[in-house]
C-alpha cells in the first residue's frame, strides 16, 4: 500500500475532490490542513516548492493539484 499524504485547506474544492477520489478507490491517506497547521505548511512548501493546494505526496512522489491521471499512475490504478 502506498503512503499517501495530502496537504489541503478547508476551502479548496480540488482538495475535496482528491479526498473523494481516494475514498472511492479505497486509498488510505493522511491529511494536513495547512491553513491551521503552520508546520505542515512549511513541510509542504519545502517538499513541493509550491504555494498552492492540494499537494499530494504518494511514496515521496509529489503531485501538484488534483491531477487525476498522475495520481492514478502513482497509485498504480490501471484503467
Amino acid at each position, binding site marked *: 500500500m502506498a503512503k499517501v499524504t495530502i496537504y489541503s*485547506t478547508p*476551502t479548496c*474544492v480540488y482538495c475535496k475532490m482528491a479526498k473523494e477520489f481516494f475514498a472511492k478507490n479505497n486509498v488510505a491517506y493522511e491529511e494536513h490542513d495547512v*491553513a491551521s497547521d503552520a508546520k505542515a505548511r512549511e513541510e509542504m512548501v519545502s517538499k513541493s516548492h509550491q*504555494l*498552492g493546494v492540494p499537494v499530494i505526496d504518494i511514496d515521496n512522489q509529489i503531485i501538484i493539484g488534483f491531477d487525476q491521471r498522475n495520481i492514478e499512475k502513482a497509485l498504480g490504478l490501471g484503467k
Partner: protein
Amino acid sequence: MYDVVIIGGGPGGVAAGIYAARKKMKSVLITDSFGGQSLNSAGIENWIGTTNLSGYDLAKNLEAHLRAQKDIEIIDNDLVVGVTKKPDGTFTVTTREGKTLETKYILIASGSRRKRLGVPGEDQFDGKGVVFCTTCDAPLFDGKTTAVVGGGNSALESVIDLIAYSPKIYLIVRSDVLRGDPITQEKVKSHPQVQILWNTVVQEIKGDKFVNAIRYKDTKSGDEKVLAVDGVFVEVGLLPNSDFVKGIVDMDDYGHIKVDHRTEETSCSGIWAVGDVSDVLYQQNNISVGDGVKAILNIYDKVKKG
C-alpha cells in the same frame, strides 16, 4: 450517428443533457468536469430553489441529476478539441483523448476560463506566489503581503477572502473605478488592510524561488514602480472556450459565439451555443440552465422533423 453532442458539464450543458435524455434523443455529453465556473465558489446564494450552497455541492448535484438519466451517454475527463462539418451537413467531433463522434447536431456549453495577465513571470511563478484560486490558497499567505489584480466582483471577493490572512493587500486596478457590487466595493475601499492602486497595470512578476515583487506602470504619470509582494492573485476576467469552433461559427471580438437569442442557434446551421461561451448578455448559472433547455428543445424539434 448521434442526434446531438452536448459539449460542457456546467449548468447549461447539464440542463440540456437532462432534457435530451428525457426526450430520448440519441445523445452524449462530453466534459472535462462538472459544475462549471462556480465550482470554486464558497457560497452561491442566487441559485433558485436553494438559499445557499457551495459551488462544490452545486457541481455534485448537477452531476448526480444527469447521471440519474438512463438515456444519455456521458464522457467525462475528456475535452472536445475539434469540430468539422461534413458535406452532408452532419458533424465530426474529436476529443483530446482521441475519440471521434459523428452527430447530426451540436450544442456548445463549454463556458469560459480565467484570463491571464500575459506578463513575464506569470507562468514561471504559477503556484509559487501567483494564484488563480483565492478560496483555495489564501490561507497560505498568512502574514504575507499580497496584490490582487482586477477591478470586478471576483477581484473584490478575492480581497475579502485575503483579509483574514494578509495584513497588507494591494488592489491593482487598471482604471479609476471599481466594478462589482457596491456593498463589496465599500467594504474593500474602507478596509485598513487594503490599499487600492488606481490606473495601474502589472508589467512583470518578479521573484527568486517564489514571487517577491511586481513591477507596475502608473498609466497616468507613466512612472514604473516595483512593489514588494509575496503573492499575486490574478482576477482579471474570463475568456470563452470557443477555440475549437473558430472559423466555423461567427463570434464577437472577445470570442463569444453569436447566437439567435430566440433559439440559441449559431450562424452555422446545426450548431447551438448557450451560457458563458455564447454572446449572452448576463452570465449567470440560472440563465445558462434556461438557455440550455431552450436550445435542446429547439434541437428536438429538428430531430422530430428528421
